[in-house]
């Protein structure tokens, strides 16, 4: 069973499919120093973030326990598989060092 697991270890999900899903995300998270407004702060960097943290954040937005109008709306469109895949893509950015 261990041999069947991906070499990257913890990461689950399909980062290639995740990259397609992440197209929408990059509209805010892919623009350096892009600002959230009211209140104003830079939208967080996601590349290389821990996958389990990203999964819990997206699910909290989807369930409404973490509040942010845009993120709640975006997360509401994501299935569990979508969340696995898109977060696998975010993790892969850190691994590539890009």
């Amino acid at each position, binding site marked *: 069973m261990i041999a069947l697991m991906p070499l990257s270890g913890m990461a689950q999900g399909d980062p290639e499919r995740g990259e397609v899903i992440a197209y929408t995300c990059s509209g805010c*998270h892919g623009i350096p120093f892009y600002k959230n407004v009211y209140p104003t702060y830079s939208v967080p*960097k996601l590349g290389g973030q821990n996958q389990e943290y990203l999964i819990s954040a997206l699910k909290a937005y989807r369930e409404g326990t973490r509040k942010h109008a845009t993120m709640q709306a975006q997360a509401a469109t994501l299935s569990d598989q979508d969340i696995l895949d898109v977060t696998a893509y975010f993790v892969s950015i850190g691994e590539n060092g890009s």
Partner: protein
Amino acid sequence: MNRLNFLMGMVMTSILSASMTSPSHAADGDYRRGLEKSQVCQSCHGRTGNESLQPSYPKLAGQHEDYLVHALKSYRSGSRQNAVMAGFAGNLSDQDIADLSAWYSRQDGLQDLEVE
């Protein structure tokens, strides 16, 4: 003439207030003091914020300074709910938050997404 002075005064006031509330001035932190204050944080997030004790804890290294400020203030106010972070952030002053955010944002770690 009085009217002109009044208008000029209004313009100067709005320029000043805009510069004072800009995000680059909001977090006036000292990263060296941030490192000193980060002893508790380090036990879960690591010294640079790039070594999480558990994968469910976020990396902090290289995160945007003003986002870290926002996150800590949200935990402190309770608008962002997390039992562990509420306990820690509740004890932080604005200056503590600025200093800690200055430290972790200056470490190597997180990356921006690339737009292709």
